[in-house]
């Protein structure tokens, strides 16, 4: 099992010592995470990675998962989408069922702690069943900047009963009568997705994926839908291709949950059949090492999203020393420091221009890649996230 001491090699100088000292102040306190699933997305990944580390630090950290039937997951999925502004039909019956399933979960689970962190909308109504003692915080991993009004009116009543909320960006937060903290998501540098790989491991994985390494690789990682704009990335690649002999790799797990996922997937597949230098990889979610190897093999990473929840593919690539050309939106705009670690762009043409600029000036690629890794080391590693939670535990449970 990975221990906090293992992070000394990768965290900023002195950071692990500070974490150890901060943890001493909250040793023995109980921190409970509650989410809807054990796998997939930030709501599951955060407790999965941090609970063992917090336990190692002496915090009584635990993780509970709410249960439910197929109707519960259908209702909560619709709620999740509507809160992000997408049109969904949500009936009164669906909402009643959602509440009833969470009531049953509350009876089964030990929802007690000095700090109880409830992740995302699915288990959000558990606050109704809060027992005495401890602080309850709602951790929202999605963009609530423009939710469907009727559904937000229903859900806001629950959120307002928490002691605080946590959002990934200020722009993702709606008006609320409770304190709102801002915490960026993070990557784990020791996980399969980000750990060091030797050149021969990278080469072997790319060979197995059928990706030739005979020319510079431009890579975009992410599902295929309009928000992530893989079609825009192909058009940027075409601008570049007139001047540089490169290969574009689009690696995703098929149609995304954003709009027009199937149309975008079809367009991407079609483009690949017309151009042998476009490689489309549809990988399963567990293909962590494969993504790692692709990011390490890439010359430049592209993330030309037009709307972003806080895709960590940017920080992952930066950690591997790659400059990123990304859409100036959501969390991408926070991860990229333009002109220093890559470029934030607003159009297909902008991405094409910056990619050409980098390919023509390879010394820029090395310099920006180095700066990118340092920016991630300080701001987007799990060690910073651990400090966030320990500081929150200290701050909220001080008295």
């Amino acid at each position, binding site marked *: 099992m990975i221990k906090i001491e293992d992070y000394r090699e990768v965290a900023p100088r*002195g950071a692990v010592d*500070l974490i150890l*000292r901060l943890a001493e102040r909250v040793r023995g306190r109980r921190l409970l995470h509650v989410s809807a699933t054990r796998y997939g997305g930030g709501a599951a990944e955060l407790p999965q990675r941090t609970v063992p580390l917090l336990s190692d630090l002496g915090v009584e950290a635990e993780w509970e998962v709410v249960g439910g039937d197929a109707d519960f997951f259908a209702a909560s999925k619709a709620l999740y989408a509507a809160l992000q502004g997408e049109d969904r039909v949500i009936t009164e019956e669906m909402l009643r069922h959602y509440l009833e399933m969470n009531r049953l979960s509350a009876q089964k689970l030990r929802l007690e702690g000095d700090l109880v962190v409830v992740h995302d909308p699915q288990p959000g109504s558990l606050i109704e069943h809060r027992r005495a003692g401890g602080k309850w915080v709602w951790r929202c991993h999605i963009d609530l900047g423009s939710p469907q009004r009727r559904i937000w009116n229903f859900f806001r009543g629950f959120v307002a009963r928490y002691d605080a909320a946590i959002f990934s960006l200020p722009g993702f*937060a709606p008006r609320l009568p409770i304190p709102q*903290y*801002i915490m960026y998501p993070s990557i784990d540098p020791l996980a399969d997705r980000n750990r060091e790989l030797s050149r021969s491991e990278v080469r072997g994985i790319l060979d197995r994926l059928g990706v030739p390494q005979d020319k510079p690789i431009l890579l975009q990682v992410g599902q295929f839908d309009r928000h992530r704009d893989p079609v825009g990335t192909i058009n940027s690649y075409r601008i570049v291709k007139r001047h540089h002999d490169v290969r574009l790799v689009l690696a995703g797990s098929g149609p995304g949950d954003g709009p027009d996922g199937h149309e975008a997937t079809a367009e991407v597949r079609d483009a690949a059949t017309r151009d042998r230098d476009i490689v489309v990889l549809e990988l399963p979610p567990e293909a962590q090492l494969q993504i790692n190897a692709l990011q390490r093999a890439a010359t430049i990473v592209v993330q030309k999203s037009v709307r972003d929840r806080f895709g960590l593919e940017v920080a992952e690539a930066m950690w591997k020393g790659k400059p990123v050309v990304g859409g100036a939106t959501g969390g991408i705009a926070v991860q990229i420091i333009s002109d220093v670690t890559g470029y934030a762009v607003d159009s297909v043409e902008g991405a094409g221009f910056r990619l050409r600029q980098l390919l023509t000036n390879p010394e820029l690629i090395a310099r920006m890649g180095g700066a990118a890794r340092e920016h991630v080391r300080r701001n987007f590693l799990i060690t910073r996230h651990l*400090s966030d939670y320990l500081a929150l535990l200290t701050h909220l449970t001080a008295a």
Partner: protein
Amino acid sequence: MSEARAPFVFVGCHELRENLGWRAHDARELLDGLEQVPVGAVFHHVYGYFLRHRFYAGPYANDFASWAAVQLRDRVLGERLAVLDPFEFADLALLREELMSIIDDHLTHLPVVPRLVYGEPFYFVQSHIVEIATDQRARTLAEFRQHLGEIDASTVYYHMVEARVRLGRRSGDFAEWLRASLGRPDLAEQVERIDLYFLSLERVRARILGLLDVALDDEAATPR
């Protein structure tokens, strides 16, 4: 080598950011927000920058100036806000007044107040600094130098920025200890003179380490 009367205790910190729910879409709303928000938000947007960024994450080292220049595309306002050196102010209330005065004066000269077109609004955030006392203690210049080279950058921030601005220790903790406990006013003065506004925390650390190395070399060369 002389010993200090009291050891220097290195204290690190972690910043918890709280979104205040205020946002500005033009300079007038920025002015209104500045007037209304807790003074902790002024601290966050002007000084907190050094803790969050190793590199300049915008054209200027304060959030108000960068937002005006990049998002609002009012470069004149950006420049006017950027030139203000926050380390010249005795307290945050005075700094807030100066920022407001600059924006107010700028607005009086604008025939039309430009609104955001494509840019992001300005979100007012305040920080809660959680102090973390470390194990590192120094009694001599050599120990001080050794620990300063090993500590987290937030420790440099805490003693050089937080101590001066929010805790009212105007010289900063490093200079104060060098002067009062170690009896090295010469070195204290050199540390005080470091221009924080244009340096990252790592550069500040490097500058102090450089000063300490010279002082330690001098001590070693001086016959007892």
